[in-house]
């Protein structure tokens, strides 16, 4: 093979490696558009985007943490706590202070996770596994096992703002994705986040403040989980103590599906948006086709394994080219 051909093959593999999620998404959209007349309507797509936004916001935070080389299993529980506080504190301190308190709880828990990981040197899997269990406990302690309900239903009107087909929730998701993509590409924190996940020894030798970056990224993740929780409470008008269960796992699936690597140092917000959208489209499309619930779950699982395999094959191909 000539040098040029080898370089081209390498470049193609590289592009595919970074952008394969868009091919998946395009494929999924194409398939469902043909299979169901209801799919490619503005109304439907708008709904899909809104529904995707919740996992999406969680995924934005998870992406920051993952590129840094860590993981956060507590986002589902943090979401539930923020949701509960945002509704539960309203009678006492009013709507927006309660919302703010919910937001702060996410910030505080994220900072706690980050500090524990940075100071103790423990693997974030263990620290946030503890968080997942314990924060859920906090939720139950606060709500007393009952779903909290809003008193003034004006609260549920808040997210009912639309810019064309995009709901406020969807807009917030996209805005956050854009904001943090900018952080990842344009700020020192973002670029050093990559450096730490990519080659921690080189980062350490260059004097990069590794602990600080970890604490910041976990705080971001917690804050975003809180935002998702608040938006969820606005949408539903209730806060269930079991809200967000298993959502952390779906968030991880979405992020990895998009192409960001668990090992760290590689990925982007756009990949994550792609992963989140693909997941949402798959769900929506299958539902429109009235396929039974189980197909959705099986397809999701299979797609993830395929994506993993593809990533493995492409990375090997690129290395050899």
């Amino acid at each position, binding site marked *: 093979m000539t040098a040029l051909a080898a370089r081209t093959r390498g470049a193609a593999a590289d592009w595919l490696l970074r952008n394969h999620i868009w091919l998946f998404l395009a494929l999924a959209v194409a398939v469902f558009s043909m299979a169901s007349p209801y799919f490619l309507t503005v109304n439907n797509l708008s709904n899909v985007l809104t529904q995707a936004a919740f996992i999406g916001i969680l995924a934005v935070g998870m992406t920051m943490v993952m590129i840094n080389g860590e993981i956060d299993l507590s986002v589902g529980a943090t979401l539930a706590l923020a949701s509960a506080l945002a509704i539960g504190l309203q009678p006492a301190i009013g709507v927006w202070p309660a919302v703010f308190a919910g937001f702060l709880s996410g910030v505080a828990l994220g900072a706690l996770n980050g500090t524990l990981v940075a100071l103790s040197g423990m693997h974030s899997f263990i620290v946030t596994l503890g968080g997942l269990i314990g924060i859920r406990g906090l939720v*139950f302690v606060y709500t007393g096992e009952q779903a909290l309900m809003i008193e003034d239903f004006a609260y549920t009107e808040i997210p009912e703002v639309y810019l064309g087909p995009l709901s406020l929730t969807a807009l917030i998701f996209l805005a956050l994705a854009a904001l943090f993509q900018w952080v990842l590409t344009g700020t020192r924190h973002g670029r050093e986040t990559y450096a730490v996940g990519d080659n921690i020894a080189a980062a350490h030798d260059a004097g990069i403040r590794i602990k600080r970056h970890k604490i910041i990224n976990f705080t971001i993740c917690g804050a975003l989980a809180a935002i998702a929780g608040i938006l969820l409470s606005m949408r539903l008008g209730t806060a269930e103590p079991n809200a967000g269960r*298993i959502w952390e796992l779906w968030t991880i699936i979405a992020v990895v599906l998009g192409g960001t690597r668990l090992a760290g140092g590689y990925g982007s917000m756009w990949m994550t948006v792609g992963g989140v959208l693909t997941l949402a489209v798959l769900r929506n499309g299958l539902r429109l086709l009235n396929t*039974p619930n189980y197909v959705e779950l099986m397809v*999701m699982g299979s797609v993830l394994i395929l994506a993993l395999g593809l990533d493995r094959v492409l990375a090997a191909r690129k290395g050899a080219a």
Partner: protein
Amino acid sequence: MTIDWQQALRRHGLIAAFGLFLAVVAVGADGFLTLGNILDVLRQVSITGTIALGVTFVVVTGRLDLSVGSMLTLLTVIVVDQHNVVGPVGAVALTLLAGLAIGAVNGVLVGLLRLNALIVTLAMLSLLQGVTLWYSGGSNVNVAGAGETWFAVFGRGTLFGVPVPVLIFLGGAVVASFFLKRTEFGRAVHAVGGNETASRFSGIATARTVAAAYVVSGLATAIAAIIMGSRVMGAQNTIGQGYELTVLAGIILGGTSLMGGSGSIWRTVIGITMLGFIQNGLLLLGYEYYVQWLVSWVVIIAAVWLDLAAKRGRVLA
């Protein structure tokens, strides 16, 4: 003779802390350390514990298995449903086979194809949930003639005053510990987790060892499903949800490292049992059941941090 505090803390710190905890609760709550209560706690943790016996093998090779919760659900549904179709013996046999098969699938993906364990078993979590829904048609299943079938013995029977689930759990622990500590396979599991490259260079079939660990995990989950199905005499589609995390929490609490290469069945038993006693003790002290989660959070972080600190000789990283 100087005492190596680091070593001592690492080897016995867990037991000491546990003992302290038991003592504190015993003082505060009546009936805590009675035989009846202890057996009750063990019975409650026997399902999680049995699964954890299998997952321990996977963790010692340095990997994870997050599919066990969904596996538990599916296998419980199978055993309950098949009980009405082929009878208890057939149902048990089928369930065990199914557990081995699912474990084998995990084993091939993670062990032979070397895909990332966390992601693969997450994907299986989803896939198996789907299979459960398909198999059950979305509805709950129940054991027909729950009053008369001998199938009840697994989840509800007692032998010499000890609940059968406890016998299965502890008996399983004895067998599992033997396999992990004393056999070629167990040695290979430790070696692969300790240094996979060196194991390969020593002629150990590392891919097969990892795959086998997942098969063990599947088998253990199948046994747990039989206990569960027998106890509940029915199964909903969410019955196993969340078990994967409790199992991992128990293994971690017991002191087995997620990095692989170290760990033991008895550590897992202690870790799982500790979680059970935390729940039970708090309940006896009058707290709601969810308070145990808060306590577990603190306990897990403290235990792992202490272990890490003892290993590296200083508290902060």
